[in-house]
């Protein structure tokens, strides 16, 4: 009862609601801007929070995070450009749905799944912070390495046909990820003495190049440039039977998002890919994935929104951010003299409480704000295609440039676009390349870290039960994919023979 009255007085006695709403709107806009990742969107508003009271500042930042994770899916669905890292998996089926004229449905599903994911993550944050934070500590370098291997093992099922081409694409991704300062020795790798490359190539650059720029090039080369598919600007919120169908992929997304949010390093993009793959594996309609599956939008969107809340668990309990965005939030806490950790809950219980209530407000506000913003976005993408293509090009390049003000970044995105276009023409899948960029560094640095710890003995992996579990699972995944590949090849061969005989 006391808590309830505290919540009510917070809602109406403090600027919590405006902070949550402003944060959410800015987050959706920033997340939807190609190139502005969730963490950059948050960092941009951080200076404005200096003058606010600590609670409003934290609520504002957390709401930006929630909004950005959701906003990233809008360009992913509409213009094949992931607005944030973690929306890359949404591109696959989201853009397919858009091509089929079902953009309104896809956006509705992404909105609904985002709300479900946020609510689940928030519930976990409020109820299980203590036990879940202990789970985060159990992960050693060996476990992270094995987790990365498990992630890479899903390449096969993301390859869409040719395993060989999928592996080749993944290798290219991993090669791009080696650019920058070596994570262990500090030696420069492929930086050509350019300071801009010291920090490595950001995955979002690769994603924007491969997805957005390549798509724009493809469209420009098409003959249907002037024609325009008329699509309704109406947002279709999922019906009740649809909600029931989405429950399973959303559940998978929530579970994966919870685990990934707890572990520093992975963040939303790994969670989104994992949940996409798992949703496909457990779906009754796996054949729809990649061709416009509603489940393929629901799972990653639920996952990345769950991460937005669950990455706050290690942040609040240890002061260890589970994602880049959580790191910006850490900066926000520190500026206001709030030191996250066990004593935050005792000393600044009101701020934590405010954070919970504010996040809840922002989560629910996603629905009305989304319904207001989305028709506008849909109207925008329904403009004549040649105008739109030029506009998107400008949007993408200015977004990329705005991050660091670097021409090199623009050149890189354009080059990745060219590579992406060549891949597209030759039927190489993009997703394994993106997965390689994201997971390559996790596997490499933790593998080397493990061996450094053991003095070169590989047995150290066997001493870590989590690593053993992941590696066995990965072996099973790969074995199953190889089996399926072979079975399909045999089936194709048979079909050919039948056709030849006929």
């Amino acid at each position, binding site marked *: 009862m006391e808590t309830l009255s505290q919540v009510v007085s917070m809602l109406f006695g403090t600027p919590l609601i405006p902070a949550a709403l402003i944060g959410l709107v800015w987050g959706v806009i920033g997340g939807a801007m190609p190139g502005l990742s969730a963490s950059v969107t948050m*960092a*941009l508003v*951080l*200076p404005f929070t*200096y003058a606010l009271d600590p609670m409003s500042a934290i609520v504002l930042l957390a709401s930006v995070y929630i909004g950005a994770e959701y906003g990233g899916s809008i360009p992913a669905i509409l213009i094949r450009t992931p607005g944030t890292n973690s929306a890359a998996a949404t591109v696959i089926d989201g853009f397919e749905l858009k091509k089929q004229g079902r953009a309104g449905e896809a956006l509705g599903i992404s909105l609904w799944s985002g709300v479900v994911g946020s609510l689940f993550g928030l519930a976990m944050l409020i109820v299980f912070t203590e036990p879940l934070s202990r789970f*985060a*500590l*159990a*992960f*050693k*370098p060996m476990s992270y390495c094995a987790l990365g291997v498990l992630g890479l093992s899903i390449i096969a099922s993301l390859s869409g046909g040719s395993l060989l081409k999928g592996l080749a694409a993944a290798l290219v991704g991993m090669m791009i990820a080696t650019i920058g*300062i*070596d*994570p*262990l*020795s*500090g*030696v*420069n790798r492929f*930086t050509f*003495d*350019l*300071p*801009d*490359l*010291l*920090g490595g190539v950001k995955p979002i650059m690769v994603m924007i190049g491969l997805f957005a720029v390549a798509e724009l090039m493809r469209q420009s080369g098409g003959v249907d440039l002037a024609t325009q598919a008329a699509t309704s600007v109406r947002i279709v919120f999922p019906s009740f039977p649809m909600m029931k169908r989405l429950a399973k992929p959303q559940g998978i997304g929530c579970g994966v998002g919870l685990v990934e949010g707890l572990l*520093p*390093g992975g963040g939303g993009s790994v969670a989104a890919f994992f949940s996409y793959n798992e949703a496909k594996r457990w779906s009754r309609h796996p054949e729809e994935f990649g061709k416009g599956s509603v489940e393929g939008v629901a799972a990653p969107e639920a996952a990345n929104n769950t991460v937005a809340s669950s990455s706050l668990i290690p942040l609040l309990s*240890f*002061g*260890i*951010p589970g994602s880049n965005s959580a*790191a*910006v939030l*850490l*900066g*926000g806490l*520190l*500026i206001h*003299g709030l*030191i*996250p*950790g*066990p*004593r*935050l809950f005792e000393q600044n219980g009101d701020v934590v409480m405010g954070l919970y209530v504010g996040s809840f407000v922002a989560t629910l506000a996603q629905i009305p704000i989304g319904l207001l913003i989305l028709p506008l976005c849909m109207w925008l993408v329904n403009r004549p295609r040649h105008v739109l293509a030029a506009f998107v090009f400008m949007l993408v390049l200015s977004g990329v440039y705005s*991050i*660091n*003000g*670097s021409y090199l970044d623009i050149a890189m995105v354009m080059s990745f676009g060219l590579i992406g276009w060549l891949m597209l023409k030759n039927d190489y899948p993009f997703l394994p390349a993106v997965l390689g960029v994201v997971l390559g560094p996790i596997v490499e*640095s933790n593998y080397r*870290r493990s061996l*450094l*710890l053991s*003095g070169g003995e590989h047995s150290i992996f066997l001493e870590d039960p989590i690593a053993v579990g992941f590696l066995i699972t990965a072996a099973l995944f790969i074995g199953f994919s190889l089996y399926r590949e072979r079975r399909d090849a045999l089936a194709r061969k048979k079909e050919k023979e039948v056709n030849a005989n006929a």
Partner: protein
Amino acid sequence: MRKLAAALAFAVFGFGAGSASAEPAAYPHKVVTLVTHSSPGGGSDIFLREMVKHLGKYINATFIVENVSGGSGARAMSRLATSKPDGSVFYAITPTYIYTSLLSKPPHTYRDLQPLAIVFADPEVLYTRADGPYQSVKDLIDHARKARGRFGAANPASLERQAAERLKAVAKVNAAVVSHEGGGDLMINVLNGTLDAGVGEIQELRAQLAGKKVRLLGVFTEQRLADFPDLPTVKEQGFDVVVHKFRGLAGPKGLPADVIAVWEKALPQLLADPEYKKVYGQESLIVDFRGSAQATELVNGFATEAEAFLKEAGVIK
């Protein structure tokens, strides 16, 4: 050297205290831009933003903070080196700008800038998990003598790693120095026992210290810290490793003498400001004021040492 700096600081401070109630010092510019390579919320960003809140009392100008992130400081160095050396723009320096200058070939390096002053030193400490077996640096080294030691540092090319490598060399032990992708990663591996100990800044450990999850083994400074009087230095425990993580300001080369004089007078006054003292007192920062000449000496000495370390570690040729 240190005594001299302290004496100088005292002299300037003494002079400043006499005129504490006076008007802020006249300055040739109305607006002064303070550049940091940190993004908002990062270490140097917080340092500058706290400072500008109080700086206006001592220098008659408006101070704005500009975040020029990217290229690990390279972009900020270029922003400075191509500005006029008239005192209208300064850069918040930390060892990062030296490491970046040494590691890559940025268009402008630390050699193109002129240190204006050093203000603080961030103490680096050696820490272990609170329920672990090590009570002192000696315990840690004894273990590393018997078995293989496991030390951690936040980043591969950093002062933290330099401290860990030097401890390993001074103690002549076989230890793995494992670098990470930031202080958070390192912290997890110290807390879960993967590493024996880690090197980090005391600010990053606040939460764990308050929660009694980590134990400090020693601090890599010459003297003990004022707010941790019972924490011995690593040096007094028999291992001569001292590192100096400085925090200060630099401008473009060729700063006018009158500008330098205003800052050298104002900064000690600022450090004595009771309100500002309250802010930095909570951060375990060591007040280490040095004027432009001594700051330059310190920075150059630091760079020589860092270059030797990076070469020894095989990071650069």
